[in-house]
């Protein structure tokens, strides 16, 4: 990926799609941040803005998809180029889903703002979890930008932490609900938010796995941590 193609236009096309994927990534990252901010600070205007912006994420997905199919049709990419194209086609699906999750969080944020609060949940754990998944996404996109296959390990570890936090949050919410049934409806909302965040972590992990495929041609999905470590660190 360092060298240039003899056909310069091909380089320009690849670079153009790559830039769009990264743009889509940073847009989605901002969506997570804003959705969370809307939730924590009960800012329904911000929540609305997040919901409104989702179409931009979707539009980028469609564009990148189209660009990739044009490149496949016209250039018949092979080897590293082919892997990058395949990786980007998959990545944008995950990014789009992350966008959807962010929208979901924004909707809950709105709902929570608008309902009369009997009980105000603490969002500290949720926020910590969201920050972690945002970092995972940022790292995955960074790994893509730098063709760095080693980041997958850190991200996989972070994903384990996110899963653990999700279970802790769930237990905590169950306790609230048991103690006071009036908290049930709010607790369920919060649980959906936690689930959305946990899904974002999964998507970020997927992206980091595609990066390994792009860089090394190795598929590291659905394998154990030990195997992943071997594959990612192998020169």
């Amino acid at each position: 990926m360092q060298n240039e193609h003899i056909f310069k236009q091909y380089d320009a096309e690849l670079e153009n799609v790559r830039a769009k994927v990264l743009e889509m990534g940073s847009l989605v990252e901002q969506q997570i941040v804003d959705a969370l901010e809307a939730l924590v600070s009960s800012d329904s205007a911000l929540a609305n803005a997040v919901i409104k912006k989702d179409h931009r994420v979707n539009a980028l997905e469609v564009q990148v998809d189209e660009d990739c199919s044009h490149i496949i049709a016209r250039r018949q990419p092979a080897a590293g180029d082919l892997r990058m194209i395949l990786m980007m086609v998959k990545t944008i699906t995950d990014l789009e889903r992350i966008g959807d999750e962010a929208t979901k969080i924004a909707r809950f944020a709105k709902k929570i703002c608008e309902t009369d609060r009997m009980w105000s949940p603490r969002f500290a754990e949720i926020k910590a979890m969201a920050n972690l998944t945002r970092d995972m996404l940022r790292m995955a996109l960074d790994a893509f930008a730098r063709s760095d296959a080693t980041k997958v390990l850190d991200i996989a570890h972070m994903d384990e932490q996110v899963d653990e936090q999700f279970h802790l949050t769930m237990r905590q919410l169950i306790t609230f609900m048991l103690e006071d049934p009036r908290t049930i409806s709010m607790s369920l909302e919060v649980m959906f938010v936690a689930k959305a965040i946990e899904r974002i972590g999964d998507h970020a992990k997927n992206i980091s796995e595609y990066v390994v495929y792009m860089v090394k041609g190795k598929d590291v999905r659905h394998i154990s941590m030990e195997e992943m470590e071997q594959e990612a660190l192998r020169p």
Partner: protein
Amino acid sequence: MVTATTPLKAEARNLNFIYNGGNRAVKNLSMPLYENKITALIGPSGCGKSTFLRCFNRMHDLYPGNKYEGQIVMHPDNTNILDPAVDPIEVRMRISMVFQKPNPFPKSIYENVAYGLRVRDIKNKRLIDEKVEEALKGAAIWNEVKDRLQDLAFNLSGGQQQRLCIARALATDPEIMLFDEPTSALDPIATANIEELMSELSNKLTILVVTHNMQQAARVSDYTAYMYLGELIEYGDTDSIFTHPTRKETEDYITGKFG
């Protein structure tokens, strides 16, 4: 994929080829040819792939001063076909060749195919008839020419002429068939016909094909070898070579970043 049971049809062992004048066009090349598989040789112009291919039927013997070192061993009989004691005519019966441009003889369609049999001194008219029909069918051209077998071969289209040349090569029941850029002079449809034919032929014989068209190598071959400056840079199953080659040189070549 190579499995433990895929038998070898031939292998080059430390092959060197030096043209009259000292140019070493093939350097210490070792490579297997698996039975009933298609192996493609790719690489930039002048990398030695055609020279290597031509070693397989002793074509270089036609010009004085050329020198082979190393071996090309054919299985299962373990014959080193480069051995001067081995008759090149015999080698060419076992290993036939199809060239870049269709080169039918200035004879009838029938006689083009019968030629190799006549060289073998086969005189039985019925046997020759049968063989010609079989070869023309094998080359997927029988239906187009069966009613005009006595027409001059030059009256056929380019793609038909190329299939006729394949029929001619098939008539002697070769074990290996060499294709030197067999479709570079053909249009896309004729190319697709030849590729389909190659894949059919590979049920019965082993194929080694030189191609400049990387997509063709990707389409037709089971194994791909990338050569550069007379050396074999990478050899592997075609899926791996085209999705994740291990050598950077191969990657650069097949992605079009050569240099």
